[in-house]
């Protein structure tokens, strides 16, 4: 074993041909080390960086079982290892994000127009920039989760879905009544439209499948893909959840805040955010009749809400008719992270976050994109503008395409797609959302999705409550309160503030005072039954009797006490020790 260990040696940093040192490990751990690692405790020089971590879970007093405690501790360590391994695996990601970068002092990224971008980038991506003129009124847009399909709904009832990769139209229908919002269900094969009175569900070919007559006068629709819940809110002010896999209406929540026209979902905890007419934002879960959070976000009606998915649903952007845009932190609702007044004329506006945390804001005919690094920096300056784009008519909806640098903008005369470099997450996970999903893959995902369907009662603000240990029940211990009428008079006067106690003086010798206090506070250990009248009588009687045994004991105790005191004095040096010996009698007193 000794030979093995010395041969293995500490792993040396690897040299690269370009002479640079790189911080990450490119090769796995040494094979020799790995072979013995399971059976031995490695010396410090051989330890991998993972081994620097704390090995155990902080002692959890809530868990009484030792076995469970050790299991939890082991899981905790494994989790930490997994985080490190995940960081290592980031090296393997093939694609890097796009972006705009100013090279000179005077260059500004927001001055770059779509034409400039199209000239610089590849043909394939440049072709995805389109302006489509339609006459269906204000268009609402929605992408599927993998960003492959697009659904549009014009105000006057023109509804269509596209396969954006191939450019095919899948369904196109003229409803001949108002269409206020559109959303895909779990994938592109079904979509729901909020129409004049009810919500309808159509299939990929535009054939009507269902009329959801319980959703009346709906303004906004959201679909929670992991829970299979279609959520709607409208002029009646009711927030309704309907399970699209079983068809059941899960719950209807009365907001009591009037008609609502702004809604967004938090993709990381499935909490629904509503923006109301008097400027408040409310957060809802289906298991509670009242909002989990209610905050006064603006001084006018809310017009736009969006939750950032890059930061795992931590930041909420809101825009209101008080012409302000605000960013809120879900960990602290008390104060907004950033607040600014965009320079565009008018008020209101809509907001949307991209996959990499850029914020798009649109008001009037203008779409602005803000860089993510200046949005959350915590100072009071408005964020720096990253890109800006002008459209022919008033915008009604902006949606980023997932995993692409594309922003789709719906407006009064059709819709346009704008290229925003750096907006899309470059590396999708094909087990979660596959861009090039095949027919078989889609079917498989549908079945697996239904098997893994989350129950509506699992929705909560903190998603990690599942699998965590419930906090210990607190039993507040308080002494039974004595009613006011039964208190002694002085107490009653003190409570009423009618006592004429002398004011406490500020004295210098505070120590003495505290000592005095502690002496008086000393508790008397009264024993029950100690002072019965008979016993008291007997005790008194005993006082007069001189018992020789008691007297002897008392004398002995006194002698002992005296000796002890003398000893103490000697040890402290106050008393001269008594010298013994033949000459001690000559000692001077």
């Amino acid at each position: 074993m000794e030979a093995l260990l010395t041969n293995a040696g500490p792993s040396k940093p690897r040299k690269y041909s370009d002479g640079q040192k790189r911080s990450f490990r490119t090769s796995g751990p040494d094979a020799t080390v790995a072979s013995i690692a399971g059976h031995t405790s490695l010396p410090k020089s051989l330890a991998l960086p993972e081994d620097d971590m704390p090995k155990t879970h902080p002692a959890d007093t809530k868990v009484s079982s030792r076995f469970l405690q050790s299991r939890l501790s082991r899981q905790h360590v494994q989790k930490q290892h997994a985080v490190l391994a995940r960081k290592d695996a980031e090296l393997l990601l093939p694609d890097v994000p796009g972006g705009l970068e100013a090279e000179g002092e005077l260059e500004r990224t927001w001055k770059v127009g779509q034409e400039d971008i199209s000239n610089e980038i590849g043909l394939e991506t440049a072709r995805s920039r389109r302006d489509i003129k339609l006459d269906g009124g204000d268009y609402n847009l929605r992408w599927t989760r993998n960003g492959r399909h697009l659904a549009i709904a014009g105000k006057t009832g023109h509804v269509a879905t596209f396969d954006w990769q191939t450019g095919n139209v899948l369904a196109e229908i003229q409803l001949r009544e108002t269409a206020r919002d559109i959303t895909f269900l779990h994938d592109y094969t079904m979509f729901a439209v909020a129409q004049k009175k009810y919500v309808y569900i159509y299939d990929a070919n535009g054939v009507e499948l269902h009329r959801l007559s319980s959703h009346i006068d709906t303004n906004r629709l959201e679909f929670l893909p992991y829970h299979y819940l279609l959520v709607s809110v409208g002029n009646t002010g009711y927030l309704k959840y309907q399970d699209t896999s079983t068809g059941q209406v899960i719950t209807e929540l009365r907001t009591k805040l009037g008609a609502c026209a702004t809604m967004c979902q938090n993709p990381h905890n499935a909490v629904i955010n509503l923006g109301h007419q008097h400027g408040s934002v409310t957060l809802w879960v289906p298991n509670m009749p009242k909002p989990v959070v209610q905050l006064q976000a603006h001084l006018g009606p809310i017009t736009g809400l969006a939750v950032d998915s890059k930061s795992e649903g931590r930041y909420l952007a809101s825009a209101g008719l008080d012409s302000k845009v605000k960013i809120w932190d879900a960990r602290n609702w008390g104060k907004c992270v950033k607040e600014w007044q965009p320079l565009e004329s008018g008020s209101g506006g809509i907001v949307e976050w991209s996959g990499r945390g850029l914020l798009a804001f649109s008001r009037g005919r203008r779409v602005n994109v803000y860089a993510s690094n200046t949005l959350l920096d915590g100072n009071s300056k408005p964020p720096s503008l990253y890109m800006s784009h002008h459209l022919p008519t008033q915008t009604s909806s902006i949606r980023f395409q997932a995993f692409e640098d594309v922003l789709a903008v719906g407006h009064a005369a059709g819709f346009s797609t704008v290229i925003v470099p750096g907006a899309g997450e470059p590396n999708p996970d094909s087990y979660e959302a596959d861009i090039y999903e095949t027919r078989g893959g889609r079917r498989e995902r549908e079945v697996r999705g239904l098997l893994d369907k989350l129950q509506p009662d699992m929705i909560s603000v903190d998603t990690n409550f599942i699998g965590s240990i419930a906090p210990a029940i607190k039993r507040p211990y308080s002494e039974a309160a004595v009613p006011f009428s039964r208190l002694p008079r002085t107490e009653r006067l003190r409570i009423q503030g009618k006592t004429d106690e002398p004011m406490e003086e500020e004295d210098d010798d505070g120590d003495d005072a505290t000592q005095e206090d502690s002496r008086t506070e000393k508790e008397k250990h009264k024993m029950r039954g100690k002072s019965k009248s008979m016993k008291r009588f007997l005790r008194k009687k005993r006082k007069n009797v001189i018992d020789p045994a008691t007297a002897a004991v008392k004398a002995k105790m006194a002698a002992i006490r005296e000796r002890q005191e003398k000893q103490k004095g000697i040890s402290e040096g106050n008393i001269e020790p008594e010298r013994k010996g033949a000459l001690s009698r000559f000692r001077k007193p």
Partner: protein
Amino acid sequence: MKIKALERSASQSLPQRAGDPTPRSRNLDPSLHPFARAREYTRALTAAKMDRIYAKPFVAALEGHVDGVYTLARDPGRLGVVGSGSGDGEIILHHLPTRTNVRKIKAHDGIVSGLTFTRSRHILSCSVDRSIKLWEADAETDTVVEEDIDPDRAGPSVQKGGAPVRTFMGKMAFNSVDHHRSEAKFASASNMVQLWDETKTEPILNMQFGNGAETVLTVRFNQSETSVLASTGTDRTMCLYDVRTGKAERRVVMALRANALSWHPTQPTVMLLASEDHNLYTFDVRNLGSPTQIYKDHVAAVMACDWSPTGEGFVSGSWDRTLRLWKEGDGRSVDVYHGKRMQRVFATQYTADARFILSGSDDGIVRLWKSRASDKLGVLDGRERASREYRDKLREKWRHAPEVRKVERQRYLPKAIYSAGKLKRTMEGAGKAREENRRRHTREGEGKPKAERRKVVLAEQE
């Protein structure tokens, strides 16, 4: 101005040729995987439910006996051959892959009380007719010809009768026989424990504790310390012997007698006892004062027990007509098997690959069960195996979640067993309450509660 936008080409993300698997990309960034924990929990719950859906433990019933099956033995050298002995003195050798009887021997006049394979493809049987007989057990079982496997004709392929190779006569009825791990010796249990050589007609060693005249019920050789023996008897004792000293070394007296005994296959100090008081006990033989664990779940006397060859757990058969599977160190059973027509279980045996369990019961049928109820028989596809392993891991990880635990633990039992269990729990509760009351009314410090483990052994004798 540097400008770069994402470029994707379908050619990289689609299979190169027809029939190729679709390329998959992975990104472990948690912001791309919402509800990871909740989804994993849901999957674990589904996995637990699927495990119960697929739980079909019963494999086959091996018929052939006219009377009840009271003893079973597996051949250490072959996977597919087991022997069973019944109450009418008949021995049958079963071939498990084909589920046929390969040999049927009318061996004894009384009940076959013990059965064990030797290391040379012979089988030893003992009986209350005071004889131990050695039989040929080769029977070409390794090469069963296709024509022989005909369920309609049970007769022709069965070899019948024949004379024993050797007979060993004793003075008293034999209750158990066990063969030495490697040498050509075996031990028998009658009113004492005797050690025999296969080639000699007289026992080479007689061992008994003191001058005890009680009947010895079972005797077993230790699997790794091969010269150590253990026995249980009707005098409620468990006794340890050493062949090298030729003496009974020590014994413990318990409240009720132990019906069966099994040594751990790998740990020489660990022993399992199946007791008449409905419980099983594991003992560390270095410290016989108290068992290391009590295993409670049966509602009647435990009649048989056997360690899994892996040593991780064991199986027990009981008078209450069930088999229960246990993990070492876990006081509650992992699973319970029962059949509509299965009667009192008198013999249980793991197969040597630990995948199956055999049980012999009063109704004369040897039953073959899976040792993991939801196992799939036959060849597993790679993907299927991977998904099974994933599901198992999920179940293990989430087993403390209340919903998962409920699905995992819940078993539907025959009404008689269920109500007997309920009654037993009530009685135990009442006993505990009574004890507690008594303690409350005794002077402080006198009525100390006694740990359950301390109550098992009444006396330890040397």
